[in-house]
C-alpha cells in the first residue's frame, strides 16, 4: 500500500501503489468529481433470443408434419377427397392469409390515426363517443355483424374484410389512446419547452413512447383477425372457414380437422411474428430491465 520499507535513508522513494486515475484514497476525501464510477453499460443484450426464434416454428412444423402424415395415411372418401385435393387447401390458406393481412392493414390505417386524433386537444372530448362506437363494433357477435353487412353490401371478400375490420378496430384504437394518454405530462412539457412544434412532439416523443402499447393492440388485432376471418366463409369471403364449414356440413372429420389445425397454426404463427415485431420496434430505452 505505502512505502513502508522506506526507512530513514531518504533514498529511493517508493511510490504508493494506487491505481492511476483512481479517484479515492482509501475510500476518503476525493469524491468531488463524480462519486460513483458506475459499471460500464452492460453489453446490449440481444433482444431476440434464439429460443424465441426457434421454439414456436419448430412446434408448428411438427404439428403440420404429423397432420400431413396422418391425412395421407387414412382412407378418404370422394367427398373429403374433393374438399382437400386440387390445391384447394393451399387456396383457402392463402385466402385466409390475405383476408388477415388486408383487414389488419385497414385496421391500422383507421385506428392509429383516429387514436392520435382523439388525444389531440381539439378532439379529446369526442374520444368517449368513438370508443363507445368501437365497443359496439366488438360487442356485436361477429357473425351477426357479418350477416347484417351481407344484407347491406352483398356477398364477397370485400364484405368479409369490412366485417373483420369493424371487429378489430377497438383494441388498436383503445391501446393507441391509452398509450398516448399514459405519457407523463412532464415529457410533453419538456418537449414543448425546448421548442418542439406540435408535430415534432407527436413524432419524436409521443408516438415512440406509445409504441409498446400500440404494438400490443396490433398484436391482439392480428390474432383476432385470424379468428374472425374463419367467419368470412359466411359472407362468401373464402378462407380456411370454408374447410371447416364444409367439413361440418358433409360430416367429414378429416376436412374439419385440417381446417381447424391450419387456422390454429396460422394464428400462432401470426402471434409469433407480431411478438418479434414488438421486440424489434420497441425503442431500446423503453425496455424493462
Amino acid at each position, binding site marked *: 500500500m*505505502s512505502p513502508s520499507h522506506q526507512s530513514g535513508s531518504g533514498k529511493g522513494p517508493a*511510490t504508493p501503489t494506487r491505481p492511476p486515475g483512481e479517484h479515492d484514497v482509501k475510500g*476518503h*476525501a476525493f469524491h468531488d468529481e463524480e462519486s460513483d464510477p458506475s459499471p460500464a453499460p452492460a453489453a446490449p443484450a440481444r433482444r431476440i433470443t434464439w429460443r424465441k426464434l426457434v421454439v414456436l416454428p419448430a412446434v408448428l412444423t411438427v404439428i403440420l408434419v404429423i397432420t400431413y402424415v396422418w391425412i395421407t395415411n387414412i382412407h378418404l372418401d370422394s367427398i373429403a377427397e374433393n374438399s382437400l385435393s386440387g390445391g384447394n387447401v393451399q387456396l383457402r390458406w392463402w385466402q385466409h392469409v390475405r383476408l388477415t393481412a388486408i383487414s389488419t392493414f385497414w385496421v391500422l390505417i383507421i385506428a392509429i390515426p383516429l387514436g392520435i386524433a382523439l388525444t389531440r386537444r381539439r378532439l379529446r372530448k369526442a374520444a368517449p363517443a368513438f370508443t363507445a362506437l368501437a365497443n359496439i363494433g366488438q360487442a356485436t357477435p361477429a357473425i351477426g355483424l357479418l350477416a347484417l353487412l351481407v344484407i347491406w353490401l352483398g356477398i364477397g371478400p370485400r364484405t368479409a374484410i369490412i366485417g373483420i375490420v369493424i371487429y378489430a378496430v377497438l383494441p388498436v384504437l383503445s391501446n393507441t389512446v391509452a398509450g398516448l394518454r399514459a405519457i407523463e405530462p412532464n415529457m410533453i412539457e*419538456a418537449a414543448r*419547452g425546448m421548442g*418542439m412544434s406540435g408535430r415534432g412532439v407527436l413524432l419524436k416523443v409521443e408516438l415512440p413512447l406509445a409504441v409498446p402499447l400500440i404494438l400490443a393492440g396490433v398484436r391482439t388485432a392480428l390474432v383476432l383477425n385470424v379468428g374472425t376471418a374463419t367467419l368470412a366463409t359466411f359472407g362468401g369471403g373464402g378462407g380456411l372457414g370454408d374447410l371447416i364449414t364444409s367439413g361440418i356440413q358433409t360430416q367429414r372429420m378429416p376436412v374439419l380437422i385440417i381446417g381447424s389445425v391450419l387456422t390454429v397454426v396460422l394464428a400462432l404463427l401470426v402471434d409469433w411474428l407480431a411478438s418479434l415485431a414488438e421486440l424489434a420496434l420497441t425503442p431500446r*430505452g423503453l425496455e424493462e430491465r
Partner: protein
Amino acid sequence: MPETETEAVTAEGTGAATSGATIELENLTKRYPGNPNPAVENVSMEIKAGETVIFVGPSGCGKSTTLKMINRLIEPTSGRIRIGDEDVTDIDPVKLRRKIGYAIQSSGLFPHMTVADNIALVPKMVGWSKSRVKDRVEEMLDLVGLDPREFHGRYPRQLSGGQQQRVGVARALAADPPVLLMDEPFGAVDPITRDHLQDELIRLQHELHKTIVFVTHDFDEAIKLGDRIAVLRERSHIAQFDTPEAILTNPTDDFVSGFVGAGAALKRLNLTRVRDVGIADFPTVTVEDPLQTIFNKLRNGPHNELLMLDRQNRPYKWLRRGDLMRARGSLARAGQLVHDTVTRDATLHDALEAVLTDSGGRVAVTGRRGEFIGVVDMKTLMDNVQELLEADRLTAMEHQHELEEQRVHQTEQELEGGGGGV
C-alpha cells in the same frame, strides 16, 4: 489560481459561449377561465443579464406559472415580456423556446433516446451541422461532469437521478441559449445529490454567465444559488426582490421573515464562499518527497504540522511532529488521513462544518480536480463572520433608511396626485 481555471475553461471550448440577456416582465397577468382570481397578477420585474434570479414562495403562489410565461408555455393574459430588448410577447413561441434553455423537475429526459440524442435535440432543431452537434454533445457532457465516452450511448433509465439531472441541464444549455429557465430542477433528488448539483450549477454559472431564472420552494436553495431572490406570495405578488443578504438581514415584512425562518445568522454563512475569505498557505510535502525532507520541513516549519499531498497534488494526510516518531519512521502508518476537503466554491457553512468535525480545527481547500490550494481555519472563519455580520448590519440600516425615505416620498406623491385628480 483563477487564471489557470479560466484557461482550462477556454481550452474546453466554452470560452466563446453566449452570455446572458436581460429579461423584463411588464404587468404580466394570467387569468384562467372560470376562476375570478388571477393565478398571476400584475408582475413586473427586471432581471439583469448574467444574473441568477430565484423565484421562491409557498406552493400554489404562481411562481411556476410566472416562469412558464417567460417562454410562453403558458400564454399571459396580458402584459409584455422582453428578452434582451426584443419584445417576445407575440413572436412564434416555438422559435422563442429554442432560444431559451428549459430544465424541469426529474430531468424530463426522453427515455427512448440516448443521453447524446437527448442533448442533441435543440442544436439539431436550430439546424446545426452534424459534426458541430456531435462536438457540442461531448462538450456539454464534459461541462456537467459526465465522462462523454461512458455516458454518450446510455439511456436515461440507466442513470442515477443526479446524473439524469445533469444531463437535463446539459440538454437545456446545448444550443447555447442566453437565458436558462429552471423549474424546481433539483426537487426530486436526494439532499446530498441536490447539494452536489447546486455546487455544480454555481460552478457552471461562474463559467457561462447565463441569465438564469430558477423556481424553488426551498429558501436555503434560493440563498445558496441566487444573486437576487424574489420572494413571492399568492398570485405571484412580489413581497421582496433583493439580494439574499438583504433579505436575510432586512426582511420587509412578516411574510418574508416567516419564509426566511429561524437561524438567519447561520444561513448567512451560506452566502459567503471560501474563495472570498483568506485562504492561508500551509506547508506541504508530497508522498514522493524523501523522508529526510519531510523531517526537516516539520522541524523548521511555522506549524508543528504538515499536509502530505498525493501524486496528483491532492490532500492525503495530516502529519504532525510526533507522528513520524510514533510510527517508527513508516510513512504508511504515520499521520491522519484527510477526511474532508472543501472547494473554493463551498460556502462558509460547509467550511465551518468541516472545520468543526476535524480535530485540527482547519480544512484543506481544493481546486477543480481536487488539487490542494490552501487551508481555512477556525480563526479565519470567526473573523470573517464577525466582519460580515457587522457590514450587513450597516447596509441593512442604510437600506431601511432609504426605504423610509422612499415611502415618505411616495405618500407625498400619492397625496398630491390624489388631490390633482379630484
